[in-house]
């Protein structure tokens, strides 16, 4: 387990889109762009139950994220990690917070409030890229 540097944390806290790779049952890859957050040493992403991603990480918790600084394409970060917890509590509210971060303070939560949201709590294990 590693501590992300202040610059790496900043990249996660600014509204840069992340791309999350998870592993399918047959070992092939699923990659999806999504909103990302950082808190208390963990990388957080928010998705909906029933989709492929939660199924994948329950079977194999190894995930990798990639982010590019939206203002400078030369600055990028790859984070390899492990999903250590799937959190339901507060997950819908967390998505509202992400909507404000990425789409502006007046943006609405894009998910129906009947949708079961889930947060992946990701422990960073290794980073590569150009942001130290």
């Amino acid at each position: 387990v590693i501590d992300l540097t202040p610059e790496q944390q900043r990249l996660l806290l600014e509204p840069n889109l992340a791309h999350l790779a998870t592993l399918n049952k047959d070992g092939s890859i699923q990659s999806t762009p999504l909103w990302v957050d950082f808190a208390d040493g963990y990388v957080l992403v928010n998705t909906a139950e029933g989709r492929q991603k939660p199924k994948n990480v329950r079977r194999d918790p190894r995930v990798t994220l990639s982010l590019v600084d939206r203002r400078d394409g030369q600055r990028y970060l790859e984070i390899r990690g492990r999903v250590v917890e799937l959190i339901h509590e507060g997950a819908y509210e967390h998505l509202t917070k992400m909507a404000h971060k990425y789409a502006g303070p007046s943006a609405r939560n894009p998910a129906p409030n009947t949708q079961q949201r889930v947060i992946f709590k990701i422990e960073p294990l290794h980073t590569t890229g150009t942001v130290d």
Partner: protein
Amino acid sequence: VVTLTPDQRKLITDKNLAHFVTLMKDGSPQVTPVWVDCDETHILINTAAGRQKPLNLSRDPRVALSIADTDDIYRYIQVRGRVAEVTTEGAFEHISKLARKYRGEDYVYPARPGEQRVIIRIEPLHVSGRL
């Protein structure tokens, strides 16, 4: 193998980065942001010989890509695919073309002594997303 729609091809040929995933020896995913291109049937990535990506592909040709529209975060595609070919033929010309696309018409990709560029030609097997 699936055929890319005109909208999907436009997302790829516009100035959007792809996040390209290959599999490490232990089966874990490696992701890198890369310049991307396509032709009628394949998605094309350009990298340098000796890097982790071509190494991974020689062992396991299964890849994935995701591409988001830089102007509209709600528009994206995700692709699962298989590498059909890795070739050095025309690879320097191809990286020069990509450099102009991403860095501007006046940008000249520098020839680096000892660097062998390769084109990775990817067959899309499954494409989803929102456009």
